[in-house]
């Protein structure tokens, strides 16, 4: 893991006087102290993340059977999952969901962030505070509340749909289940994303906007050519974080599944599949393999996004 030593620390060029060499050694010694600050975290990280991960990889190569116990099975588990359509359908679903939800939500978050940044709506600070409230609500609670709002028998939103002539509207039908989850997830995360983008926008110096106005930019141009590019780093970070969250979605469908078992299959999302296979079905090897596959998919998608970004030009 050794990287090249920075120039500052490198030994003095040959033939230079002693004082230079002394400073170099002092600088290096000082910089090495940095390790002490970093080590505690790294140790914890290895213990609580890396070791379990390796353990999971190991487990994925074993199969447990009721009769016969555990035995090494190589890539058997992986094969099983590759051929099992259920896992893939769940994976495809979250990928598609993410591909729709993330841009939509970021658009919404950016839209409001810009409005508040420009002060183009009254009572901006009040709205911002309100929009941020869902972040204080744990997913479980949010899912429970929304489930009860969507509940077929007594859910208020079902009654509400009745006002439009859609009686006994089912939010959990196979056609509506993903839009329903969409409603919940957007509710949970838009405010948080918006606050991040808002603060990021605020750091764009006022003079830049003034200069753009003097250069003849309309409002739309100011937003698209000045503000948006300058918050690109924040947006990229949010895409990354949101994507990781979306691919590992568990809580919302799981809670909905409690109230409406028929709406959520055992492999609705990859994480649900992993949980069901591993904890309920006791087929831990398979669950581990699925988890590893999920991890690899996450890495692949991240690298693709990363590569696209790098290719598009400057990378800070």
């Amino acid at each position, binding site marked *: 893991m050794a990287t090249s030593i920075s120039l500052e620390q490198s030994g003095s060029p040959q033939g230079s006087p002693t004082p230079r060499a002394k400073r170099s050694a002092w600088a290096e010694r000082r910089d090495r102290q940095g390790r002490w600050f970093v080590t505690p975290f790294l140790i914890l990280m290895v213990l609580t993340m890396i070791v379990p991960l390796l353990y999971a990889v190991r487990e994925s190569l074993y199969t447990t059977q009721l009769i016969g116990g555990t035995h090494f099975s190589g890539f058997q588990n992986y094969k099983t999952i590759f051929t099992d359509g259920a896992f893939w359908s769940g994976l495809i679903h979250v990928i598609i969901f993410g591909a729709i939800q993330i841009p939509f939500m970021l658009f919404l978050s950016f839209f409001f962030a810009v409005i508040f940044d420009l002060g183009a709506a009254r009572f901006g600070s009040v709205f911002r505070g309100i929009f941020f409230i869902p972040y204080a609500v744990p997913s479980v609670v949010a899912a429970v509340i929304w489930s009860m709002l969507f509940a077929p028998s007594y859910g208020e939103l079902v009654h509400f749909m009745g006002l439009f002539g859609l009686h006994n509207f089912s939010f959990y039908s196979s056609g509506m289940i993903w839009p329903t989850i969409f409603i919940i997830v957007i509710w949970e995360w838009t405010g948080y994303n918006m606050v991040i983008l808002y603060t990021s926008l605020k750091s764009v*110096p006022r003079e830049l906007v*003034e*200069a*753009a106005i*003097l250069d003849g*930019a309309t409002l739309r*141009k100011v937003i698209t050519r000045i503000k948006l590019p*300058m918050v690109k780093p924040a947006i990229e970070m949010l895409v990354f974080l949101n994507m990781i969250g979306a691919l590992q979605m568990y809580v919302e469908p799981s809670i909905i599944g409690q109230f409406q078992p028929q709406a959520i299959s055992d492999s609705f999302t990859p994480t649900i599949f992993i949980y069901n296979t591993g904890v309920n079905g006791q087929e831990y090897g398979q669950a581990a393999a699925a988890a590893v596959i999920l991890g690899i998919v996450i890495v692949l998608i991240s690298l693709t996004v990363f590569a696209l970004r790098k290719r598009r030009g400057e990378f800070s």
Partner: protein
Amino acid sequence: MARISAQGLTKVYADGTVGLRDFSLEIEEGEFVTLVGPSGCGKTTALRMIAGLEEITSGTLKIGDRVVNDVAPLERDVAMVFQNYALYPHLTVAENIGFPLEMRNVPKAERRAKVEEAARVLGLEGYLSRKPRNLSGGQRQRVAMGRAIVRRPAVFLMDEPLSNLDAKLRVQMRAEVQRIQRQLGVATLYVTHDQTEAVTMGDRVVVMRDGALQQNGTPHELYEHPVNMFVGAFIGSPAMNLYRGEIVRADGQLELHIGSQSLELPPELVARSPRLAAYAGRSLIVGIRPEQLSLPDPGNPPRSKRLAALTADAELVEDLGNELFVHFRLGVPRLSENAVAATAGASDESVEADAGVARVAPRSRVRSGDRVTFDVVVDGLYFFDEDTGAVVGGRSSSRRGSTDNQIVAEANE
């Protein structure tokens, strides 16, 4: 290419503070006018109002012959160079310079030609594909100028564009800015807090203070004929030495008493400054420019009766080779340009901690600690009212044209 005509521009903020008071200025085509004053004097406010970035509370602003009070900045055909350059960090130099053209939907080919032309004028040809963060301060400044000139606007507005550069670069860039302005012949309003910069660059200089215009004239006029104490002490380096003095009538003559010393005021001077007689028996503020003090050559007798003597303690002698600065103390406190009773200010603002400065002949014999007697060119003294700061006599009075400025000063009292 048009002129700017500002008449009575006033800016009052929502909380009642007055940023600019009754500001009037005319700038002709091709003129380079500098706007100078201490921080908070309203110079930037005035500039921004002309740019359209600040609303005009009252007054009329015309660019060309068009009243532009309510016209959007873009429509005013002005270009502005900001103090911090305000370059778009995510765009290259070429894109930065071309941005105004892009905003007006100028076709790509034409845009590129104009950008390259601007780059040539500014010496930026090799940097077109760089980003601002990879440029030095001076280069960034030039890109900011490029963005301003590429549109060939009617007016250039510059808000302390050189303040962020180091001293040497600043002097270099001053010449650059002037060269470009002359080449393009565009009316320019240039704001700075540095009086040296204002005076060396401007065809005309406008001095401001506390939101009010103090004087508007050529550098020469401002230096020779300041309308008030503030302008007198603000323009010129080393600054004018200000002291409190008293006019005393003795034997039918007027004398100036500073501390325990008295200087005879020749009748020609009194004749030229009729208002001075009214100050007999009262105190006022006298201004002595450093070059009005000289050290008598022991070999030659004093040449003119127009010299009086002023004794002082030399505190420090700076030998610059071609001239000698003698820092002296008179025993009476030296005043700053803010020492006017009419303005509410902390008392320590009105007194200068520094000693007075005299600019004497290069090989004068004087050492730090000496007690020296200066020859004072009495003709060159300035007299200011101690309550209003307005000039009441002395050198200023003998010139035409200064009466207009005096009226301005009086109006500002």
